């Protein structure tokens, strides 16, 4: 196979600037002067893992509250400053980290970083805004409870990760969100937010030197000597049989299904084997073999695909489909049959080479926008991939064999050891 992309267009050590500030913040920068705008995104080493069970969702709540008022500006002041120049900035809580993302015209980068810094270091959690935000979060949870896709996913996580932090939804439950006080938010922020482990990527119409200096000016002085280390993840107890659970949501026309188990973490040796296998299984073309079986041949679903969410820990490896309530059992049988085939027979050479070509060929598209490049840079930092990762990437993909895929698939998936979650009428 020919490698079509010129290596020089991929981010690498020559054009990525990576600087660690003295307080532990890593700054990654890459310029793109074709663009009049700039993207700032990154994450902090604080997430839902720190949430106590009875206050589940507090990490997410705090992240959403950072922009509700700071020592310098009130809520409207913050958003007037941002929206008046067409800029945006937001925070979002996840299990391991709290992410942030913003963009503006290049000339407004200082403003963006100033607001990022204010939100992170000087939030004041105004009482009235907190109650308003609480009502919004609770409405979100009401919508979640009536969304078949959300509820199938949530139920699936509870089954696969029983007793493990991944069983917990990071946006919490209505009763836990109700129980969180303003003082809890203040305390959570003071204790857990800090610069250590924070990563900021700046990509767009600004030089890397300027980007680094502006981040340094905005966040270089931040310290939190008491910032805790991230909690250790316990191991996930493997499933011993097929377990099923059904959530009834009256009044719906369609049922959603999630079937699968825990998959590999990103740093697993067999990550590329699993990722390419997953592509053959439920991604490539029109959703791989799963799409072929459930949508194209049986006509059961508008969507049916697999995904492998390898992250810091062992994220789920699952198949999702939305089907008519009468076809739920039929779809589950088809999915299990495909899982059986996937873990007992090697994928064909040509299936694998198709997916390899896709993985390599799609890089330029993924890296087209400032946001895409920023995401790629954060990926390097999050998983210690090395600055030359995107230049080594084609080689890593090419090295995968059908035997390797089979070994990875059968390590994580078994047709008789699965969680099956269904939400529908």
């Amino acid at each position, binding site marked *: 196979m020919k490698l079509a992309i010129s290596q020089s*267009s991929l981010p690498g050590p020559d054009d990525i600037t990576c600087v660690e500030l003295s307080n532990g913040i890593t700054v990654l920068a890459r310029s793109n002067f074709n663009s009049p705008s700039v993207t700032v995104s990154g994450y902090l080493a604080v997430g839902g893992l720190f949430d106590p069970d009875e206050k589940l969702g507090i990490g997410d709540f705090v992240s959403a509250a950072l922009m509700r008022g700071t020592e310098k500006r009130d809520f409207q002041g913050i958003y007037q400053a941002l929206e008046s120049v067409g800029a945006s900035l937001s925070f979002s809580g996840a299990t391991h980290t709290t992410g942030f993302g913003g963009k503006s015209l290049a000339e407004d980068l200082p403003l963006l970083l100033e607001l990022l810094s204010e939100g992170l270091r000087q939030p004041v959690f105004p009482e009235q805004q907190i109650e*308003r935000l609480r009502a919004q979060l609770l409405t979100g949870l009401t919508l979640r409870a009536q969304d078949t896709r959300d509820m199938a996913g949530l139920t699936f996580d509870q089954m696969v990760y029983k007793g493990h932090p991944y069983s917990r939804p990071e946006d919490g439950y209505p009763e836990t969100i109700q129980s969180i006080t303003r003082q809890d938010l203040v305390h959570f922020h003071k204790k857990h937010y800090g610069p250590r482990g924070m990563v900021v990527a700046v990509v767009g119409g600004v030089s890397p030197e300027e980007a680094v200096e502006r981040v340094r000016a905005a966040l270089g002085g931040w310290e939190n000597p008491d910032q805790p280390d991230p909690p250790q993840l316990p191991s996930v107890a493997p499933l011993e049989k097929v377990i099923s659970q059904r959530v009834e949501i009256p009044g719906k026309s369609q049922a959603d299904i999630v079937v699968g188990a825990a998959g590999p973490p990103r740093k697993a040796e067999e990550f590329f084997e699993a990722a390419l296998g997953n592509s053959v299984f439920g991604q490539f073309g029109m959703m791989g073999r799963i799409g072929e079986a459930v949508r194209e041949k049986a006509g059961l679903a508008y969507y049916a695909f697999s995904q492998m969410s390898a992250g810091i820990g062992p994220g789920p490896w699952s198949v999702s489909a939305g089907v008519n309530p009468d076809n739920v059992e039929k779809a589950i049988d088809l999915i299990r049959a495909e899982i059986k085939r996937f873990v007992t027979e090697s994928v064909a050479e040509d299936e694998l080479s198709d997916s390899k070509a896709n993985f390599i060929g799609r890089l330029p598209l993924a890296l087209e*926008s400032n946001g895409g490049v920023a995401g790629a840079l954060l990926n390097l930092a999050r998983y210690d991939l090395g600055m030359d990762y995107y230049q080594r990437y084609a080689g890593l993909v090419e090295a995968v064999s059908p035997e390797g895929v089979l070994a990875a698939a059968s390590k994580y998936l078994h047709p008789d050891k699965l969680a099956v979650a269904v939400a529908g009428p």
Partner: protein
Amino acid sequence: MDSPITELKLSNGMRVMLKEIHTAPIISSWVWYRVGSRDEIPGKTGISHWVEHMQFKGTPQFPGGVLDKAVSREGGVWNAFTYLDWTTYFETMPADKIDLALRLEADRMVNSIFDAEEVESERTVIISERQGSENQPLFQLGEVMRAAAFRVHPYHHEILGDMADLQTIQRDDLYNHYRSYYRPNNAVMVVAGDFETQAVRERIEALYGPLGAGDDPIRPARPEPPQRGEHRLTVEGSDDTTYVQVLYHSPVASDPDFFPFIVLDSLLTGPTGLNMFGGGISNKTSQLYLKLVEGDLAVGVRGSLPVTIDPYVYNITVTVHPDRTAEEVITALDEEIQRVQETPPTQEAVDRAVKQARALFAYGSESITNQAFWMGFTEMFDSYDWFTGYLDRLAAVTTDDVQRIAQTYLVPRQRVLGTYLPTNGEVSK
């Protein structure tokens, strides 16, 4: 930053627009057809969207499944969209792979098979797509509201089509629809990205030039008579959240009133922009956000002013606060609309809306796919000049224009006001 566009018309009537953009090794290729749900009659609703699905099922040269794999193998993405007024197909590929896209679109413009068995298998897929949408309360409400806003004009039905028609449309119906509208003289082709114009031009002429033109499709759409009086309606459902939606009849994109209307929308519900790929911003300082969300009457509000061939509707959608009622929201909404009718906005507010539009343009132009989208999209209801003149025409909007638009269009007798109410009672606590 902006490079010129090369425009040509093939002898069979197909229009072609080419734009070189050398910022990334990518090319995005689109074919736009002048057909959408606007071209459907009762009994055949949803047929344009279903034809779009069938276009992925293969031709003799590229049988079903071959194309998906071919595009994916080259690292490309492809998709298609059916809208009210148009249907479009795109491929964005690594630059040296674009020939595949050019070949496959030329092929399926005329050679799709529409195998009867494939039609049946796709019937259930499309019904499943519709049922997935029916799970959403705003789809249920929106469908009924549109039907109330358009009694005569074909904008009255959902693009997905009515379930009754999805159960009865036959293979030949689909094939005839395809043959009537998929022809070079009813298509606009757009290619943007990292290429040399002359080479792509020659390739397009070779691939598309020989395709025969048919009669120009006739696109009658019965005009909607003026609405005389407010329609109010309620949809009940099992979800526990209350929504309020209001539709005001609005002008077409080519109408001079459209630009001040964009500014009015931006002031009321925040800037929306024209980006299909990448780039919106938050809406926490708009007038309705301040009134409804900061006033603890709602947890969210948004608006949109779609661009269409025939007059359509401006919509505002409010997610009601769990402790409040739809009536409270409607009262506050009306107060705020009355305010913009009585008092023009400040010049500063209008300038701000224009700056926001500029930023949204900058974000959208980062993506070659999005740039190609703009070119074809604007041709469907006006011309690419509409797009290139967009920011200047926004900048020319005066505060009086905005007030006049509010007075002319945001009037109760020209609106449909709808509420989604939880069956178990509006306030759940």
